[in-house]
């Protein structure tokens, strides 16, 4: 394995998503928002039933209106204070009538770095190439409903 401190560059990949942003907040503040399960839930939009502990699973219940029936298991991988946090989950496992447990998971990683007055955050989700095509199709279809609502709320914001 390569060192985890720096995200690898692979822009054309279908296997991963990478987001980078700089926030006007100290790294310790961002670290708390990412690594404290209660705070993570507050911005992500889920209520977690426990703390983040390496190699432990925490169940989260989505708090977005209309999605409260959805629970997601986060399998915490590594916690390196103020630098790195990672977990695995089943992406878009939003159909509660399906059993996703035997299927491949994706890896979600948060990288934190000092950036001038603020903090740079890189979020990477990888492993999509291993997600079965059927799942992608279903997720795509199921997301349509969610998208409808999101677009309406975007419209309200911009108009």
């Amino acid at each position, binding site marked *: 394995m390569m060192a985890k401190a720096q995200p690898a560059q692979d822009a054309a990949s279908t296997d991963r998503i990478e987001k980078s942003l700089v*926030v006007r907040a100290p790294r310790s503040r961002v670290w708390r928002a990412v690594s404290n399960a209660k705070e993570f839930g507050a911005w*992500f939009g889920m209520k977690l039933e426990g703390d983040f502990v390496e190699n432990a699973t925490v169940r989260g219940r989505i708090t977005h209106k209309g999605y409260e029936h959805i629970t997601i298991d986060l399998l915490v991988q590594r916690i390196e204070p103020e630098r790195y946090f990672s977990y695995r989950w089943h992406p878009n496992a939003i159909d509660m009538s399906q059993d996703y447990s035997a299927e491949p998971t994706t890896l979600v990683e948060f990288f934190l770095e000092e950036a001038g007055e603020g903090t740079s955050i890189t979020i990477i989700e990888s492993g999509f190439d291993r997600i079965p*095509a059927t799942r992608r*199709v279903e*997720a795509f279809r199921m997301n349509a409903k969610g998208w409808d609502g*999101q677009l309406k709320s975007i419209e309200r914001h911009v108009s």
Partner: protein
Amino acid sequence: MSRRSGAATLRVTDAVPVFAALADATRLRLVRRLSVDGPLSITRLSEGTGVTRQAITRHLYALGDAGLVRNARHGRERVWELDLKRLEYAKRYLDQVSAQWDAAADRLKAFVEDGS
């Protein structure tokens, strides 16, 4: 953020026929079957479904219109297969997940910058 939401609007508009075509249990089963078993004839696709060949054919053409499946001649037999490449499903799927992370990242930024 308006640029981002504009791009999302375009993608969703493009995807409407796909959503419509998949909003049916039989069609979804056909897509699942083709994704698991690969190209199949209508006879094979009808087996054990309790749906007539004619109905299966209609569903396949509806999926075909949305660009999800296509048919091809394999020797004397006509088979149907998923058209994942043309649809760039992997990419569309990733676009969706990507947009969800954009929204989550915005919420994280607001959360830590609020001084809470």
